[in-house]
């Protein structure tokens, strides 16, 4: 769709400039005359929304960096200084902190939209790969940023994530020390994370330019998943059609954004991050921010540390391969009755994986026990349980438990045998297997066995056909 340029400079200056640096021609061809499929729905406004998010993060971030101090003794206080003493500092910080979450909400919608309508398929493989690259950079940037306030979750989150690199065989330890700049997460770590947190958004901006470039070479996919045949019938000009629609999408998105910033600014964060980092006190429950939870669940689902790390990275890595894993000739799930159902199952699986990531792994979801007895003291209960275990040739630690209850303001200790217990880790394992099954097995398989519904002859027919159908009804 990157047809001939239709730009004609309007006056002497623009003619002069066009011969020297055709930047206005570029803007005109990319954002004014650029033909966009006329059947795009509102899921297609998230590209513009994501650009807005990146812009907001960079602008608020640059101002915040003017007031922030990357030092383990001063970082926490400097963030509170921003909240209290800097003019509108609270506004900047809450926009930036919630902006990260909004950015991820938008990117997940954008990616799932791509998955639903088959936007990753030929000829848009490079476009998709650049997008996954942006997503990876976003996760790294968000992780670096979350460390900066130097709260408990900052510190312990950084410790958990950097320790993952310690799982690499042979070179794990030196790599980890190299990342830390010391023998644990400390001041050198905070300094380099601050530096990288400032750098990465500009890498994202750079890859975004490539992403948009690739988009403008292949042209946008659309809900019907069929290519533009006759631009005069199938497309409309980017401006005003897409511009005004994107602007409306952005305004609605900003309402959600503003709700969090002004009325629930800490709702998406963890209270423990308002406690200053303390290397001597591990929080009871270390959890990453919500947008990393599904991957955290996959990491914890594997009993082996290296295996968990590899599987977690594989969960993102597999996205790079999607264009070649999918064997279906049809792009849009609209015409793929089987894939359409599995798509939604996969969305639900990802959400439940995220839920698993936020829970204690040992939390029992359902199970059955056989009571051994109720005792007044823990020791009595432990003795009874140990005796029962010996008798039945079972392990007192793994097959039995002692629970403490308060009944009528009196403690009682219930010893019982665990007959069956299905915990969060078990659920996460099943869902992890399904996550990979979806991409590695269903993607190639569905294309072969599925009988797609008939495709419309053209985009314009798909729009008019729908219109005609509603008119008749």
């Amino acid at each position, binding site marked *: 769709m990157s047809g001939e340029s239709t730009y004609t400079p309007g006056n002497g200056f623009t003619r002069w400039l066009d011969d020297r640096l055709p930047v206005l021609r570029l803007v005109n061809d990319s954002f004014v005359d650029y033909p966009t499929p*006329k059947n795009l729905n509102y899921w297609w406004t998230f590209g513009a929304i994501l650009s807005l998010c990146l812009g907001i993060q960079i602008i608020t971030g640059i101002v915040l960096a003017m007031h922030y101090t990357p030092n383990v003794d001063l970082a926490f*206080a400097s963030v*509170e200084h921003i*909240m*209290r003493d800097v003019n509108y500092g*609270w*506004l900047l910080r*809450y926009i930036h902190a919630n902006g990260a979450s909004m950015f991820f909400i938008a990117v997940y919608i954008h990616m799932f939209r791509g998955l639903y309508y088959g936007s990753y398929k030929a000829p848009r493989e490079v476009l998709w790969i650049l997008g996954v690259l942006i997503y990876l950079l976003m996760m790294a940037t968000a992780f670096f940023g979350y460390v900066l306030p130097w709260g408990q979750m900052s510190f312990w989150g950084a410790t958990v994530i950097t320790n993952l690199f310690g799982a690499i065989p042979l070179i794990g330890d030196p790599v980890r020390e190299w990342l830390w700049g010391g023998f644990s997460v400390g001041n050198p770590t905070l300094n380099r994370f601050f530096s990288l947190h400032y750098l990465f958004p500009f890498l994202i901006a750079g890859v975004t330019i490539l992403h948009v470039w690739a988009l403008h070479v292949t042209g946008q996919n659309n809900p019907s998943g069929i290519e533009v045949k006759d631009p005069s019938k199938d497309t*409309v000009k980017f401006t*005003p*059609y897409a511009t*005004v*629609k994107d*602007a*409306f999408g952005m*305004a*609605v998105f*900003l*309402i959600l954004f*503003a*709700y969090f*910033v*002004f*009325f629930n*600014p*800490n709702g998406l964060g963890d*209270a*423990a991050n*308002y*406690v200053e980092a303390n290397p001597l*006190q591990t929080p*009871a429950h270390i959890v990453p921010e919500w947008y990393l939870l599904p991957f955290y669940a996959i990491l914890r689902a594997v009993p082996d540390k290296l295996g968990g790390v590899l599987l977690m990275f594989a969960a993102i890595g597999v996205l790079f391969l999607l264009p070649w894993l999918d064997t279906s000739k049809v792009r849009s799930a609209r015409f793929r009755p089987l894939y359409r159902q599995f798509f939604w199952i996969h969305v639900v699986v990802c959400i439940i994986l995220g839920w698993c990531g936020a829970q204690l792994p040992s939390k029992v979801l359902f199970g059955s026990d056989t009571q051994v007895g109720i005792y*007044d*003291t*823990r020791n009595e209960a432990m003795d009874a349980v140990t005796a029962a275990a010996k008798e039945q040739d079972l392990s007192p630690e793994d097959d039995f438990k*002692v*629970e*403490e*209850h*308060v009944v009528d*303001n*009196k*403690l*009682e200790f219930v010893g019982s045998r665990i007959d069956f217990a299905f915990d969060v880790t078990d659920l996460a394992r099943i869902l992890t297997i399904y996550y990979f099954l979806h991409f590695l097995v269903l993607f190639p398989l569905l294309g072969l066995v599925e009988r797609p519904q008939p495709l419309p002859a053209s985009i314009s027919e798909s*729009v*008019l056909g729908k*219109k005609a159908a509603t008119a008749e009804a």
Partner: protein
Amino acid sequence: MEKMMKTMIQSVLGRRAMGVVMAGAVVATGFAFGIQPASAASEAHEPEAIDWSFNGPFGTYDRSQLRRGFKVFKEVCATCHSAHMLKFRDLAAKGGPEFTKAQAKVIAAEYTIEELNGSGDMEERPRLPKDPFPSPYDNPEQAAAALGVAPPDLSVMAKAREGGPDYIHALLTGYQDPPAGREMAPGSHYNPYFPGGAIAMPPPLFADQVEYEDGTPTTLDQESQDVAAFLMWVAEPKLEQRHEMGFQVMLYLIALAGILYFATRKVWSDVH
């Protein structure tokens, strides 16, 4: 030194709390803030949700409540806890207890601060509105040596715990006798709202512990609510400004989205 410390604690806490503090001091170091028996599974109680004046999108602080809460904070909490991000001038700022500037100045002058003078010596002077609220101990180590466990700073406490002010109120009113059979380690106190149920802080607040100037009854519940509201303000001093601006931003965005919706319909009307 020890005697000096004792007199100091006695003067700030009064005789009644003295025994409790001493008991805590005897336990000394070694206990984490939450002392938990091995594999105890009892979960912390859910704090009761209070209908705070600052809840909701239009919520504002109740000035009288903040002033009462400040009194509780100053006379009770601040004897052990610091809140080093609170400055005296904040007390006169908009959206807070809104004492007058003169009042904030007088309150600040009740305390002193040491400062380097021109000849390089430390010199004591009365605190000014720009100065932070004084910490009862010079450093956490000193506090831990005196109390067994260093009490946490309260500057952002209302945001640093799940449940925020609801949790603070529940914790302050939640001390009770442990259930029969539950052995409490020395220096720990039973409070089902605290994770693990055993807290190092002795019951800090009692009914009639402060005198309210506005005639509000000084029940434990009232005092706890007031100080929890005050700590919420200390943690989130720009809440009122935030709510006010949020309302304006929402109105603007809804109007903008409405205009853009009709603009989109108009622009697209000739397409389909």
